[in-house]
């Protein structure tokens, strides 16, 4: 998925709508932003939603910033997939 204005606004809308409507929209927004290489939106979205939603209780309490961590993981996966999957042409796979 390449950079695309429409996807940027879709991801942004997901992050903004999440605290009003349905919190998984925020997660979808973070993933979309990471997949389209909008790293800043992905991480900022994660941080803002983490501040809003607070620290998770019980088992995941020690994670402290779960959505920010999720955004970072999504970005790392995106970069890794770019390096090893998406841009791997035939000339490199003899």
């Amino acid at each position, binding site marked *: 998925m390449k950079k695309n204005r429409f996807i940027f606004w879709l991801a942004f809308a997901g992050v903004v709508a999440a605290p009003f*409507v349905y919190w998984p929209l925020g997660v979808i927004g973070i993933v979309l932003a990471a997949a389209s290489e909008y790293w800043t939106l992905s991480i900022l979205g994660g941080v803002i939603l983490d*501040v*809003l939603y607070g620290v998770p*209780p019980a088992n*995941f309490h020690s994670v*402290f910033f779960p959505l920010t961590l999720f955004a970072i993981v999504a970005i790392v996966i995106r970069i890794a997939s770019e390096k090893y999957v998406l841009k791997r042409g035939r000339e*490199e796979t003899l």
Partner: protein
Amino acid sequence: MWREPERSVHLDFGVRRRPRAVSRLFFLLALFAIIALVAVAFFRQPAGGILWRGIGFVENNTGFVGAAIRDFGAQFSAKAILAEQNQELSRRVAVLEARNADRDVLYEQNIALKKQFGRPDASRSGILAAVISRPPATPYDTLVIDTGENLAVITGDFVSAGGGALIGQITDVYSTTARVTLFSSAGNTYQALLRGTTPVTVTGEGAGALTAKVPAGTEVAVGDAISFPDIAANISEIVAAIDAPENNSFKTLYLRLPANIFTLQFVEILPSYGAGH
């Protein structure tokens, strides 16, 4: 004059250079994330308060942002299904009204008797709070309410859906808002009493559901109340279903909170409830 044609031969043999841009990006990303997390960790509480005040302002003054999107889906519900739901709900209201007819009288009588025997704290008046945000807009089974430090709300205060129907506890307090973590929050466990006598460990499962295990010989029925050991009458869960397999030494109780967390409009904060604080 003959000249050898210029040729560019690209021999890679699988040796790939590490793209510098990617490592620089990784470094910048990691640095940015660390700085941001440290900054946010320090200012998380006030920042959360400011953000929720903003969201509360939008919800209170417009009221349509979430509702408009939520109601959009309702347009696709079939008319017949809605009519059927309406009839079912009307029947349920009638049954509950009949059941609750004597509840207020008994409750008043209960408090009067406790006062007569020297327990004036048997009834507690709470602080009314409006719910700004509720599941599914918030994760981890939490509510955000519109009272906070301004009305002396403190962490650990119990929250009821009305009267003695306890649903959770205050876990974060901001200047004008507070966060309530419901008992059903996934992974939370606490001790309570089944039918006011049998101790049980209740575990939250999320979305207003909880579970508990009791020995196979324990007398329990659907509709039984789970409560906290306290002088004031309270209900924290209701038994919704029982799974009692044969040849098993335990029964699994499936519980639900005494109120629908997805439609809560108001809650009551009980400042001095319990002995924990």
